[in-house]
């Protein structure tokens, strides 16, 4: 089973940076960054998130996420737009209720486990809420 990840942020650069960090731990896992309002500003666009889901999701290729996609989101309307995109998408995807950076790193590690499932990756991402830093 293969699970993919999509990282959604209001900032395209933030999303790419988070993916850059998570990819260090991700092995072969497919991770896609998506963010920005499409006009160079801050925001998120459901169509762009849908495209990212399609890019990561099951396309029949060797590394396609045939067990679905876990979506990491930052704030507010990014959550709503990700929900809309998931409802419109053919790809099986769930949002992890997790801090976006820590959740993405946890999910990337969990996704490398050969016995991984969509649920197990989401659980690991959500466990990032418990991380204590000081």
């Amino acid at each position, binding site marked *: 089973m293969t699970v993919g990840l999509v990282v959604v942020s209001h900032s395209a650069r933030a999303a790419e940076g988070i993916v850059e960090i998570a990819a260090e731990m991700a092995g072969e896992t497919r991770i896609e960054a998506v963010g920005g309002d499409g006009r160079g500003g801050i*925001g998120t*666009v*459901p*169509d762009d998130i849908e495209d990212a889901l399609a890019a990561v999701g099951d396309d029949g290729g060797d590394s396609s996420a045939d067990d679905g996609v876990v979506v990491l989101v930052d704030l507010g*309307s990014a959550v*709503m*737009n990700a*929900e*809309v995109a998931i409802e*419109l998408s053919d790809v099986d995807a769930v949002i992890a209720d997790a801090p976006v950076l820590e959740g993405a790193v946890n999910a990337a590690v969990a996704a490398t486990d050969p016995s991984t499932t969509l649920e197990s990756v989401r659980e690991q991402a959500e466990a990032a809420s418990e991380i204590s830093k000081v």
Partner: protein
Amino acid sequence: MSGNDEHGDDEHDAGEAVVAAVEAVAERIEAERDHLTDLDSAIGDADHGGNMARGWAKAAGAAGDLEDPDPEAVAKTVGKTLMSEVGGASGPLFGGSLVFAGAELADGVTAETAVAFAETYLEKVEDRGDARIGDGTMVDALTPAVHTFKKSIEVDDLEPLEALAKAVDAAERGVAFTVPIRARKGRASYLGWRSVGHQDPGATSTLFILEEVLEVAADRLDAEVPETDATSPTIPDDAESEPGSDDATPEGAE
């Protein structure tokens, strides 16, 4: 109601009516841009007027570009455009809800499909925004409008235009209701008690949209906008409501 030989023409006329409504909404929102921005600057980030005006202008353009529009296609096109053009939460709330509600218009616009459309739209806004009535959001305008429309059609058997006029009045009362209550959802909720005394911008733009739909519907039917209000008596409640039998349990009260 549909499926007769004229179906294609009917659907085309209905599609053009929906396009006309979208154009009227775009004009109205543009005219109210500063008003909406003022409302939003009091309790939010002062972008509602500009975002909505830009989004609806693009949506009206996209709807106008449709060849042979049918109501479902128009609703979905407008919804999709709003989703990508209106920033913040308004994109998914106004646009996303329209995309899903638009599917209810697959068989054209009838009293029945209009009720289904309205109910789906409300449900999507509630779910997406995790807001309920009394939270000081667009749900406060939308809920009374949808409930009044449904009741006017399904219980009172009113003409759709009169039902819509009642719904608009109900929405207006809902907008007024957002003023004296504390916002519990959306950016205004960060203000806590300071949100009291302010009218919700999203509820206000929702009312403007409904007012324009009513105007265009009346215009298309060559009728006057009915003089009515949400609390005006309709037909007597003759069905099984004898005096003293007020033991009816509100829905979901168990």
